[in-house]
């Protein structure tokens, strides 16, 4: 008993000046710096690096293992068209130096078929013939094709799967970690996480929508290209305390 009391006293002395803080992620989107919201949807107002004019009609994506130091949120769905998921708050984060990072999509270990009820309920699943699990992103819209006619695109990111032999699927985990670095947290803080949508079509793969537009989910090479381009999509922006 004496040992227990002694232990409590020591802990109190060490932590008395460190009130926990809250950290809020605010997710925003832009096209090479021009802000994009749902109000910008359904309008051919963006141009890819390859020169196709694009209208965005649907854009939703999932982040997982969102970490602020030792605090972790399993996953979070952001739906720009429906204006949901734009903020994510961590309460009770320890003051001091904390790393911030997340995974775009799900790592294989967490990409478990059918277990996330909220994602099932909004039909974010990947068919079993492609290994199941969940989309990382659904990005749908239209582009002007080489005849300047409207054409559809479904830029859907999932775990890459090679279905050459449907009985023996070969997977490649195309989720990726975004490390925002280490932050010294002293008070409640809001950190903007920016998605530059244009980067999905830019770097390192200049995306030609006339060639890669729909049926990308079963396209192993296309999924790897999407993943490569995604690594330049996210950055942190404004930090407000």
């Amino acid at each position, binding site marked *: 008993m004496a040992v227990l009391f002694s232990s409590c006293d020591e802990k109190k002395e060490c932590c008395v000046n460190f009130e926990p803080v809250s950290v809020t992620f605010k997710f925003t989107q832009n096209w090479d710096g021009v802000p994009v919201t749902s109000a910008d949807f359904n309008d051919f107002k963006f141009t890819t690096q390859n020169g196709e004019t694009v209208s965005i009609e649907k854009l939703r994506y999932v982040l997982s293992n969102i970490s602020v130091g030792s605090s972790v949120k399993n996953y979070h769905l952001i739906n720009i068209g429906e204006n949901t998921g734009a903020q994510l708050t961590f309460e009770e984060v320890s003051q001091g130096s904390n790393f911030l990072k997340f995974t775009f999509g799900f790592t294989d270990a967490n990409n478990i078929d*059918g277990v996330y*009820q909220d994602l099932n309920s909004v*039909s974010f699943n990947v068919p079993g*013939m492609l290994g199941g699990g969940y989309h990382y992103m659904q990005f*749908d819209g239209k582009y002007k094709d080489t005849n300047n*006619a409207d*054409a*559809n695109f479904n830029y859907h990111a999932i775990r890459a799967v090679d279905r050459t032999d449907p009985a023996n699927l070969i997977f490649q985990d195309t989720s990726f970690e975004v490390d925002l670095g280490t932050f010294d947290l002293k008070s409640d803080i809001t950190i903007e996480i920016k998605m530059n949508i244009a980067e999905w079509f830019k770097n390192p793969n200049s995306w030609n929508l006339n060639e890669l537009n*729909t*049926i990308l989910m079963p396209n192993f090479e296309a999924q790897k290209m999407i993943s490569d381009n995604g690594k330049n999509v996210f950055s942190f922006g404004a930090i407000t305390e």
Partner: protein
Amino acid sequence: MFKKYLFLLGFFLLMHCASEEEEIYTPIPYNLEIPELFADKLIAPVIPTNNPLTEEGVALGKKLFFDKILSGDETQSCASCHSPKNAFTDEQQFSDGIDGKQGFRNAMPLFNLAWNFDELFNWDGKEFSLEKQAFEPVSNPIEMHANWKNVEQKLQNHPEYPTLFLQAFGYSEIDSVAVTKAIAQFERTLISGNSKFDQYLKGETSLTPQEQNGFDVFMDEAKGDCFHCHGSNNNPLWTDNQFHNNGLDANFSDAGLGAITGDPADDGKFKSPSIRNIAFTAPYMHDGRFKTLDEVINHYSEGLQFSSTIDPLMKKVSQGGVQLSEKDKADLKAFLLSLSDFDFISNPAFK
């Protein structure tokens, strides 16, 4: 003396209150039986806090749903256009109202409505909440064409209804709000989750090779690509309950969602109906233009019409659609028929 009378008056008032309290009936909470797959795969159904399900409320809602007293000339009930044997729709392209007038939309089937998470009802999403949806057909001139005041009065003068409302809601003064609350309660109990495909997912039966291939066509982005809007083995609702332009027309005579939101980008968009029980719900589409499932499949295969708001998920629009083989079409139909829930359409609790 005055104080004595005041005391007696207060005493009688208190006694009166106490006797009224004794008369208030506490309704019994209704145990909504949620299918195993729904419980496993989906978030909880939407039950408004101001209209919880009770045994009395559901029973009252059922009685009202089938009672022609809600129509102007007492010739039609809700069930006239929403028949249990047709998964709570009818077999007509456009239903006839009490005056013989027809609308311009196909009657929607009614089931699993508590899992419409956005709570936008009707083909065009006009009504937010089941309660509000139930309000409109009663007074619509091309439907039941009644006057709500008259309906309320008829129910109030009815030998049974005042007591039933008292038991369900704690008051016997009947108004349209209580009527629609009761109907909505009953509608939330209309749960369909026992088709052959449900049984297959639970390991209780197997699919035929045709049904299995049809399911594969449904789930294959390079073939049917139906799953993006119509659910999957992980979403037993078989709808996303969202609004899409599925390429029916190049020009719109009915703007659908666009007429509600006022946004031209929504023109030609209608709610994805569930494909569960599709064997019972012909004709198809918001305007009932397709009489058979074959016509529906042919539409997506080679009948798509381009328009500026066509959903990006519609593939190969310039070729008319996804170009399914005849075998894949037949197998897709076999799979769709495996979503038929015969227990649902014959459930005595829903008749």
